[in-house]
């Protein structure tokens, strides 16, 4: 046991004395959250709107004011005919057009029904869906303010219902994604590099020619990165709850359990990579190309899995992050419990067990 502790202490020395790397590892989640949260925000802001209203009346003006006042829209042009709308779309001067029918206000007052046509520039379909939704929301709100008693009668309101993410905040999407990515990066990549470094430096030779048990070598290499991952998990949680205002809807214990399980899978991946490579560069390439890219592209973090071609959807089953992200979304956003992520948990346990078994079998007691 003393061997193990002394080895673990040595590993912490290595990491803590490499100040730059520690800083990068600890700041990475912060930077990623900030990048995703603000710079790469998928939310729609100040979308240019063109308005066509042949009859300028009270209701039309109020709806236009509300749209303009919203942070999502900026009423840029007032059109006089439908040709103006075509031109505005072509020149990129507007992304959304609101076309009020003639005598809009009167129709509303007398028949209780009126029509607005919403035309979106759908070159970016995700964005289009978002701002169409915001626009119809604003219209519905106006209608409700107008007659709080009678709901849902009158104005055209496309029935868009967004479960669990009523404001369609993208943070709900990327927080689980960032978690899935950071853990892989720190556990798999850093662990494999740390083990391979001993091979490269020649110290592995001395360790092998010693009574040190291989499992101790492995455990102590893993330990510091486990701690780092837990710290990063905490950082991401704090940032998402307090800065991004994404609450943890479900049980924190469940979330933690799933995350520890994922860390375990990531560490065993790192271990496997370290047994397959003999240079730090190779370890970095394999974990970079072989892990990061699938995590980003095939986990559902950026592209929805449902929209993938069958083949990629099949491949995505082998990406641990896919299951983890799914579980985190279920627990953190939907507020469901462990019982609802049994499939994810099962897959992760299976992956971890297989990976650990392979890498322990492959861990060599001799050189190359």
């Amino acid at each position, binding site marked *: 046991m*003393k*061997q193990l502790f*002394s*080895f673990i202490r*040595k590993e912490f*020395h*290595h990491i803590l*004395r*490499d100040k730059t790397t520690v800083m990068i590892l600890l700041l990475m989640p912060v930077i990623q959250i900030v990048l995703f949260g603000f710079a790469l925000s998928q939310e729609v802001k100040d979308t240019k709107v063109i308005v066509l209203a042949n009859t300028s009346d009270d209701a039309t003006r109020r709806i236009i004011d509300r749209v303009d006042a919203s942070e999502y829209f900026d009423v840029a042009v007032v059109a006089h005919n439908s040709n103006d709308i075509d031109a505005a779309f072509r020149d990129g001067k507007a992304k959304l057009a609101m076309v009020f029918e003639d005598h809009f206000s009167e129709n509303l007052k007398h028949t209780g029904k009126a029509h607005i046509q919403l035309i979106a520039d759908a070159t970016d379909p995700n964005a289009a869906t978002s701002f169409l939704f915001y626009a119809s929301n604003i219209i519905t709100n106006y209608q409700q303010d107008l007659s709080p008693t009678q709901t849902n009668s009158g104005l055209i309101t496309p029935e868009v219902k967004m479960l669990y993410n009523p404001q369609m905040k993208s943070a709900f999407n990327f927080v689980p994604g960032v978690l899935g990515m950071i853990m892989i990066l720190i556990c798999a990549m850093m662990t494999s590099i740390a083990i391979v470094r001993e091979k490269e*430096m*020649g*110290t592995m*030779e*001395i*360790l*092998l*020619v*010693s*009574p*040190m048990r291989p499992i101790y070598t492995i455990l102590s290499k893993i330990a510091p990165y486990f701690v780092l991952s837990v710290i990063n998990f905490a950082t991401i949680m704090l940032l998402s709850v307090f800065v991004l205002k994404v609450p943890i809807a479900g049980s924190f214990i469940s979330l933690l359990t799933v995350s520890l399980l994922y860390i375990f899978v990531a560490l065993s991946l790192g271990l496997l990579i370290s047994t397959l490579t003999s240079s730090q560069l190779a370890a970095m390439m394999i974990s970079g190309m072989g892990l990061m890219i699938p995590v980003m592209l095939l986990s559902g973090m950026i592209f929805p899995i449902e929209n993938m071609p069958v083949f990629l959807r099949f491949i995505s089953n082998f990406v641990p992050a896919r299951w983890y992200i799914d579980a985190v979304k279920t627990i953190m956003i939907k507020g469901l419990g462990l019982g609802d992520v049994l499939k994810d948990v099962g897959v992760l346990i299976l992956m971890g067990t297989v990976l650990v078994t392979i890498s322990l079998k492959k861990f060599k*007691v*001799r*050189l*190359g």
Partner: protein
Amino acid sequence: MNISDNSSPIAIHCESVSKNYKKIEALKNINFDVKRGEIFGIIGPDGAGKTTLFRILTTLILPDNGTATIDGFDVVASYKEIRKRVGYMPGRFSLYQDLTVEENLEFFATVFNTTIEENYELIKDIYIQIEPFKNRRAGKLSGGMKQKLALSCALIHKPSVLFLDEPTTGVDPVSRKEFWGMLQKLREQGITILVSTPYMDEASLCDRIALIQNGQFLRIDTPENIVGQFADILWAAKSDNMHKLLEDLRNDEQVKSSFAFGDSIHVTVENGQLTVDSLKKYLIERGHKNIEIQPIEPTIEDCFMELSNTQI
């Protein structure tokens, strides 16, 4: 097999060991024994197979053929037992550069289930020289200091057999001399030492040596016997123009070989072929002045060159 204890007279036994890397034969049929308490030197240039041999004996790689035992334990079957009782210093400086001197030593002590205090007596003479720098990171030490630290780490568990793979390569002559002094002291404490070196002049400091080239042992014996078996007559020649002297000697058909050796040229002549006087005469004819030719005792390097010349 009940010879698995430290009282067995043979510490290292190596029988018909060979190893190939793809097409290259790194070791060809190596046979030798090292007696307990001996300093045994494996002498030969880089690429001769020294490191491969060390790795087989320290259980790091498997031989393709043959068997080897350390303290009676088989290097393949009983590798765990061997790893408990040997000390190993690989060719490259293999300590943790970002740990301090003391941290390195403590770490290796615990790896071998011991403490610095327990075996301090053994390493005292060596460690005392680096102790003033015990809080310095190993990466910031000079070559000689690193070497002492590495030796301390390899000794910390009081190994019965010590494997030193090229411990003096790239080290200056003064530090090398000191290092060999330390090895002599360790032998007095009963530790068997297998050491490899490309420096031929270190051969005389070993009890027995094996000369190795191209994966083969050229000869195994005491340094004295190897020198004694030198087959040819050896002269040291000097003149005012050493460079021309070498050329002229090479052009003399009766001279078997001639190579620069420090301030003179060592000339080998097959028995009874040529006399000092006739060679002198030949050189005077070629315009050399202040010619000195003296019969001399060969060094290990002369022997190595003679043996490898006949082998290639």
